[in-house]
């Protein structure tokens, strides 16, 4: 294999990896902060993708314009979902374990609800549109323009979130809540405002990811579930609650999949990622990149 073929292979892995990272960051925010394992996360990605496709094909909106719109809409949806379901769940659950189990069940319910609503509304066909399909030459390697754009934007949003969490006071509050919920509340961090906000931002990010995906891939109502599973794999790779880990894990998984598929065959893809997932969960449940800290 020539040098440029390698570059193209790795780059295509990085491009899918960028989207994985973006999806995983949103899920990680929800799980790390609130212990809501939102199994319906990929469904909201699908909603974002369908919204973009629908606006593009009906009214001719540019997909780029739809980025902030789908972020805003999905964030509003997230606030509503949090207000209707998880707020009550937090109040009524006696302890965190029970909250986690019930939250998982509610998320399953959301998954059924959203997925079937979309396929009821728009039908189960594969959809897609053309956007920036001309190839771009970089050095000796060739890429589709839309994929480069997807990668760039996914990376920009991921880094934006990480910067937000590292640099601002809001981010400091979030990180404090992740470290110790009780301690954070003692120093005056308002969980009742921060939790819905972060849930909304998580869903908004998945809406952005869906919007980006619709630019270069075909979409269908069942596209969400594989992304949920991938996001789960990525956050186990990176460690629950670790944002930098999720970014690195997403890119790594993309490259591993691309290289693995090149050497075996495409039907191995699911098998490969599930094997990685189970192996990591069983052997290093605290994540690949975290240093071993004290065990409770």
């Amino acid at each position, binding site marked *: 294999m020539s040098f440029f073929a390698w570059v193209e292979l790795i780059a295509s892995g990085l491009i899918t990896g960028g989207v994985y990272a973006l999806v995983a960051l949103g899920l990680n925010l929800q799980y790390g902060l609130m212990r809501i394992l939102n199994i319906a996360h990929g469904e909201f990605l699908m909603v974002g993708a369908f919204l973009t496709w629908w606006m593009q094909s009906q009214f001719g909106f540019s997909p780029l314009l739809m980025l902030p719109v789908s972020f805003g809409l999905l964030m509003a949806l997230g606030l509503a979902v949090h207000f209707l*379901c998880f707020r009550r769940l937090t109040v009524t659950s006696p302890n965190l374990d029970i909250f986690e189990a019930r939250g998982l069940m509610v998320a399953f319910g959301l998954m059924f609800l959203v997925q079937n609503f979309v396929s009821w509304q728009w039908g189960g066909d594969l959809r897609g549109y053309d956007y920036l399909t001309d190839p771009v030459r970089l050095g000796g390697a060739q890429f589709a323009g839309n994929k480069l754009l997807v990668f760039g934007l996914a990376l920009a949003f991921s880094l934006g979130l990480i910067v937000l969490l590292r640099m601002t006071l809001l981010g400091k509050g979030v990180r404090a809540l992740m470290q110790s919920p009780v301690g954070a509340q003692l120093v005056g961090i308002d969980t009742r405002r921060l939790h819905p906000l972060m849930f909304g931002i998580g869903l908004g990010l998945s809406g952005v990811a869906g919007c980006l995906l619709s630019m270069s891939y075909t979409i269908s109502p069942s596209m969400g579930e594989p992304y949920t599973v991938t996001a789960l794999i990525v956050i186990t790779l990176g460690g629950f609650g670790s944002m930098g880990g999720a970014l690195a894990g997403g890119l790594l998984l993309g490259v591993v999949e691309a290289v693995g598929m090149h050497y075996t065959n495409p*039907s191995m893809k699911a098998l490969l990622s599930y094997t990685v997932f*189970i192996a990591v969960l069983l052997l290093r449940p605290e994540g690949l990149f975290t240093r071993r800290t004290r065990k409770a």
Partner: protein
Amino acid sequence: MNDRQLLVRDLLVWFGLTGWALAIPGFGSDFVVSMALTCLMYVALSSSWGLFCGSTRYLSLATSAFFGVGAYTSALMLESAGWVESIALGSLVATAVAVLMGAAVLHLRGTYFAVLTFGMTELIRHAITYFEKSVTGTVGRVLAVVPERDTIYLTVLALASATVLLSIAIRRTRFGLALVGIGADEQRAQTLGVNTRLVKIAGFALTAAVAGAVGAAMSVRWTYIDPQTVFNPFIGFQTVLIALIGGATTLWGPLIAAVVFSLLAETLRLAAPQVYMMTLGLLLILSVLYLPGGLASLRWDTWKGWRDDTRAWWRERRHEWSGRKAREKRLARERRLG
């Protein structure tokens, strides 16, 4: 009611229901029998799920794995072995898978356990698909020898009623108490001398044995099976859903919910499959939020509680919207300041 009276009541109900279900093929049409068959399948699956997962609070999503393994085994064996042998074998293979899986993952609790069992189910499904694609070259298999309708029905009925009888019996044994003890507080159970590891694996294997047997018996209903149908994660989800909505820790809850769901599924699924799934999702959310104990915990007081809650909420809203709340707040502030 004391324990003895409860036992007598449960046994009488069990006896009556079994007898009634036994009579269905005698007078029902094909449609009714097939509906009853689905119903019985979910009774067996969700009762056996509740037996282990309900009492220990380990949320397993692996039911479809055991179901599929059982179905595949019986599909492979049916041509060379008899009907009863292939079902027994299917159940045995599923049990073996459960013991292996349990030994690997049962030390993890909560979400980790749920996610891992789901991941392993998917892994098994993809592994079998891959194996069929690349080694045997064909995906799925056709079942040529199929027993009669009544044989399948009676077999599934026997499995369902045996499962219910098993859960009546087990909750009165040391083993059942150990399971409940693990659910309440695992460390305390350990301190009191329960070998939790062994008990958990045994319970998990019991669930799998029933699910495997049901899968083996139901596989012939499709006449053509592939990993997509028999390892369908939806079978596992719906089992969990039925058990949770009915009340996972109770005896009759899963049974009531299974009947309700089969009726709902048959009436809604043909007309509008998506609406059925949406109803399912909505019901799940509502039942987790407002009825965490399940349908079986529904009492007269629950209704009264809801009514009182709604009234209190409405009074609060009226208080707020009429502007009295804001006025009272203002008055209180003025009084404090002045």
